[in-house]
């Protein structure tokens, strides 16, 4: 059988990749996708532990996470559309109206 640590390592890697994407990409779309990556890493963690502890609660929370991810994607993309309509750009580093 596969030790849980492997899954945890995998989720850590996914998480890091997601963080890198969020921190480095300019395209807001890609940033949103990276956020999805992070969320999936979390899900993998949850499910792996639920497997290890033979407790279904982890999966329940994974479901909640997926729900939140759906909501986040919907709202984020809506914002993106509105943004593109007003600023004609989808680059995160061109949107700095709030700088001090």
């Amino acid at each position, binding site marked *: 059988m596969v030790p849980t640590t492997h899954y945890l390592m995998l989720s850590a890697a996914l998480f890091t990749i997601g963080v890198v994407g969020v921190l480095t990409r300019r395209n807001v779309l890609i940033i949103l996708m990276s956020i999805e990556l992070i969320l999936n890493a979390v899900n993998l963690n949850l499910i792996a532990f639920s497997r290890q502890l033979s407790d279904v609660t982890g999966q329940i929370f994974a479901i909640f996470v997926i729900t939140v991810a759906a909501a986040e994607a919907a709202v984020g993309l809506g914002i993106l559309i509105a943004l593109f309509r007003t600023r004609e750009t989808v680059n995160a*580093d061109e949107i*700095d109206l*709030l*700088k001090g």
Partner: protein
Amino acid sequence: MPQSFLDAVWLVPLLPAASALLMLLIGRRLPKPVVSALCCGSVGLAFLTSLGIFVEMLGRAPGPERVFEKTFFTWIPSVPILTEAGGWAQFEVNWGFLVDPLSTVMILVVTGVGFLIHVYSIGYMAHEGGYYRYFGYLNLFMFMMLTLVLANSFLMLFVGWEGVGLCSYLLIGFWFKKKSASDAANKAFIVNRVGDAGFLIGMFLIITTFGTLNFTAVNAGLSNFSMGDPTIVAITLLLFVGATGKSAQIPLYVWLPDAMEGPTPVSALIHAATMVTAGVYMVSRANGLYQLAPLSLEVVATVGAVTAIYAASMGLVQNDIKRVLAYSTISQLGYMFLACGVGAFAAGVFHLYTHAFFKALLFLGSGAVIHALSGEQDIRKMGGLWSKLPITGKTFATGAIAIAGIFPLAGFFSKDEILWKTFSAEADPFFKVLWAVGLITALMTAFYMFRLVFLTFFGQSRVPHDVEHHIHEAPRSMTVPLMALAVGSAVGGWIGWPAALGGGNWFEHWLEPVMRGRGEAAAVEHSHATEYGLMVLSLAVAGAGIWLAYTFYLKRLELPERLASRFAGLYKLVYNKYYVDEIYSRVFVEGPVLGKGMGTAFAAFDAHVVDGVGVDGSAWLTRLVSRLTIWWDTWIVDGSVNLLGWLVWVLNLPARALQTGLVQRYALWMAAGVVLLMLYYVQRYWSLFFSS
């Protein structure tokens, strides 16, 4: 209906004021009947109110109860000033009315005669343009005149004084398209300014002397002054200057004849009945002051007498019907001042009262004649109108008899009262001279008045034929006032029926509370016999005047020309009004010193001192100050603000460096924080996490 007419005294001036406001604002849009109804109605109501006031005054006991002063609001709030009477006084002027027998008589005269003249104007001005404007001015005049006579202080009186001046200007120049009319208006205005200057200075003197302008207060303050006090003399003389201006006495009478350019009812109302008598009213109102100044009293008497005979002499030869009446007005005013001068203020006011009736009557009659002859004013082009204008003729004749002083019409009583008072004033022969002058003037008056009557209404007609065929009697709205006035001038004098003829001389007693009785001791006692003699004499004089006029202008028509040619120089001199206008214009208009010189001097003063120093200097000062302010505002006020902002900006530089507004930058900070936190945990729980 207020419980007391005295409380409602404010209605008297305010009713005409209201309708005047209405006229001058929206009168243009109102139809003529509405205009006439409003104006005459308001004046009529004022007259009724005055009647109510009069009746109420009658109801009161003679004496101080008949003096009623009502203050409405403070005009000039009190300021402390140092007076010569000693010590500080709180000077303040209230907007208030003083109702006493004198002002009651005045408002009765003003509103009554004014009402009749308003009614007359409906017919007279029917075909004139600017109907609403005319009536608006007329009502405004009523308001001002009533303010004048009701004033409780010299300043209030001055307000009315100037107001009536303005209205007289407006109404003389009513036909402003006529050059002569506007010139006459300017002349009246300017000449009056000269008098008003004196009036103003007199008022200032009063202020500095008594610390107040209120009549009662001034009268109360008189007790501090002895007879003939120079200050009082100065005050009274200055006030008299103003009176000569307003009441057309020598030397400021010149404007009145020209004022005949205005519509005839205006001449009747303003330049015969009411406004020109304002001077007399003012003098008698200030009689307390005058009685402390014998010198100025003598001046007043002299000026009055001289003016009377002088104007009468000019009236002898004038050919313009209205001008004759104008000069007669001047001479009658002279009579009044003569009365005041000899201390018989009551007699002066009495003559004022009667004169208002018959002079208004005469003017309105002449107006009717002019109306009938479609604008003709030269008596040489009249004659034989008696049958054509019966009512006008009879009423005009009544007025003439009255002014000539034939018993028992109004003129007889007042004029005779004046002459008697003059004769019996003092033992000083100077007064006898004045009396003689008055007597001669009476002769002249009778003569020129009947010259007017005969030339206008009798003899054969000299009217040009184009005018001849449409001569017509005036409409009812004009004849009714004529008749009313005729009645007035017939019986109006009876209230002053002298004691000698068994009357009580009620009018004099009526005015007693106002007039500070002069010590009767001064007056020389005369028997009734003397008085009768004088009456008969004056009657004879009047009769003589009428007979002369009859012989000259009805029986022996060649006489006037022969006399004129005999005394050509004299005739020319008188006919040209002694060249006074020319002299005035030479001296004061083109004259090198008093005219052009003074004008240029004043112009230079105005240009350089007033404009240069005053206006431009203040402007320069303002610019300087504003420059300083700008500098201060820019460098100190704004500067401090900017400094503050700059400080904040500088202090915030590091914070702004953090606030990039880039989401990812914030995320980076977050991630860095997580990394450091985990490092901390790793080293903190080393032994727990890391085995071996």
